[in-house]
């Protein structure tokens, strides 16, 4: 849809949207504020004073780095698996009509449509039954499962928008299946995969509930935070970590936005 031409929003909509955004962001601002408070045990309002010390304290905490390392590794591997599985599924579902197509799309959506705790204890009891000890890979198993859907959704949407005649045009011009995939399909769904991958990464990176059940004693960053937030000691460290994560992800999010947007425009202009 093009935006309503030259019309500005009614005042009510503007106010409600502004209030909604404010609601979304004030608590995050608070997280930032408490990354600099001088008081460490419990958060007082207003903060008694401000300090930059927590930045260096955080930097020097080895447990932060281990948890961060594990979270990044988990997110990268889960996202990669989700990219492969989600793309395959999307390609199959949008490329052809086959019996059970609906079932497949439902199956992909299920892990995100069912509460995480169900995924969590289902996998956990399966691990128990199969005598699989908790490991890096048990975490991955959980995360990749619910990450598939975001990649799938993005890829399906793009496949739907990408004219099927592009693939035919490629084959018509002499490219076999592999060449067509390499030179036409991949470049056209690339940005959608990027956006889906980013969302998958975010989902994995911040996941607590499923992880609680599949991690055993390993600590991903959110699990570490949960532990840390219960302890009235150096609580601002968690805020510093949360703040840094937001700041560090700012640019990739923006980049993904512009990439997918441009992708859409180009895809739409093939007509």
């Amino acid at each position, binding site marked *: 849809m093009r935006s309503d031409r030259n019309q500005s929003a009614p005042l009510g909509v503007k106010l409600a949207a502004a209030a909604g955004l404010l609601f979304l962001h004030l608590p995050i601002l608070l997280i930032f504020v408490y990354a600099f408070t001088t008081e460490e045990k419990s958060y007082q309002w207003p903060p008694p004073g401000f300090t930059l010390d927590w930045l260096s304290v955080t930097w020097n905490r080895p447990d932060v780095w281990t948890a961060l390392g594990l979270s990044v590794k988990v997110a990268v591997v889960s996202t990669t698996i989700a990219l492969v599985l989600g793309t395959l599924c999307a390609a199959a579902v949008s490329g052809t009509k086959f019996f059970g197509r609906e079932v497949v799309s439902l199956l992909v959506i299920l892990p995100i449509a069912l509460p995480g705790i169900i995924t969590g204890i289902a996998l956990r009891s399966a691990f128990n039954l199969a005598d699989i000890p908790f490991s890096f890979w048990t975490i991955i198993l959980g995360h990749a499962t619910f990450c598939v859907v975001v990649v799938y959704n993005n890829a399906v949407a793009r496949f739907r928008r990408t004219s099927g005649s592009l693939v035919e*045009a490629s084959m018509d*011009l*002499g490219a076999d299946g592999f060449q067509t995939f390499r030179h036409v399909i991949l470049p*056209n769904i690339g940005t959608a995969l990027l956006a889906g991958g980013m969302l998958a990464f975010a989902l994995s990176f911040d996941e607590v509930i499923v992880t609680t059940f599949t991690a055993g004693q390993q600590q991903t960053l959110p699990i570490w935070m949960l532990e840390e937030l219960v302890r009235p000691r150096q609580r601002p460290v968690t805020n510093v970590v949360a703040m840094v994560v937001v700041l560090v992800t700012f640019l990739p999010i923006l980049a993904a936005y512009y990439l997918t947007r441009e992708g859409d425009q*180009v895809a739409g202009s*093939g*007509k």
Partner: protein
Amino acid sequence: MTSAVSFENVSRHFGAVRAVDAVDLDIRPGEFFAMLGPSGSGKTTCLRLIAGFEQPTGGSISIFGERAEGVPPYRRNVNTVFQDYALFPHLNVLDNVAYGLMVKGVSRAERGRQAEEALKLVQLPGYGARKPGQLSGGQRQRVALARALVNKPRVLLLDEPLGALDLKLRENMQEELKLLQRALGITFVFVTHDQGEALSMADRVAVFNDGRIMQVGAPQDIYERPQSRFVADFVGSSNVLPPEFVARHGGARRWASLRPEKIRLGEANGAGVSGTVRARSFLGATNRVTVEAEGVRLHAVVPAGLPLPDDGAETRLSWSPADLHLMEEA
């Protein structure tokens, strides 16, 4: 001489839908062949059968004498200009044109040279660096053409390539396409639902209806000697006259077609069939008058400048018997 494309009793059914139904067809090498027909009549499906995007459910297809069944599109020396052009949005114009050469492994320098040449051929030299999104419809159409031609196909398939262009541009492209085909000598198979386009461009026309070919022939044949009501009705804006009417006014008891420009309008009490004027439209060089006579609606085309009867007025229609074309269809 072997045909460029030959269909022997070819069918393509989709479940209950008979998109193409027992079609026999021979397209001659080097000819400009048009497939004409209303929407859903199976034209695109025929083209896709030639290109290899569809497999026949019955019959057999050969291209220059070689059997084509089971051969994937990328192994057929046939190229297509798609209705929506299907330009690769992520590649610039030059890379689009060079695509077929690239997948064949032609070196970058060489394919750049050939693509540049093809762009020159379609009068877009120097546009190589643009993205398809930055071109107008007519320009995209030419890029699609260059992209197909650069592969030197033996048959070029065009699926309503001018459908998305506006009238003015379309007329120009019609002329250009025809000149190009003459110059290259490549067999062109051209799909359209616009009878004017088919008549003015093609060497031969096949008229499709409901998955079947109703008539194949030179444009004049089709226009002047339609074999069936459908063809008469669809090609040109002929008046199709029912057997009773024809029987009453000098012909046999058969369906007949009567071209509007052959009808003369006269005084209400002159000779011929009398009727009431229902509408008049100005067509520029001519005026079209719609007359209702004996329950049949007839169109007469009168050169501009001649006097026109008023709306609602009584008038008489007359024609010379030779212009009444009796059809084979009973």
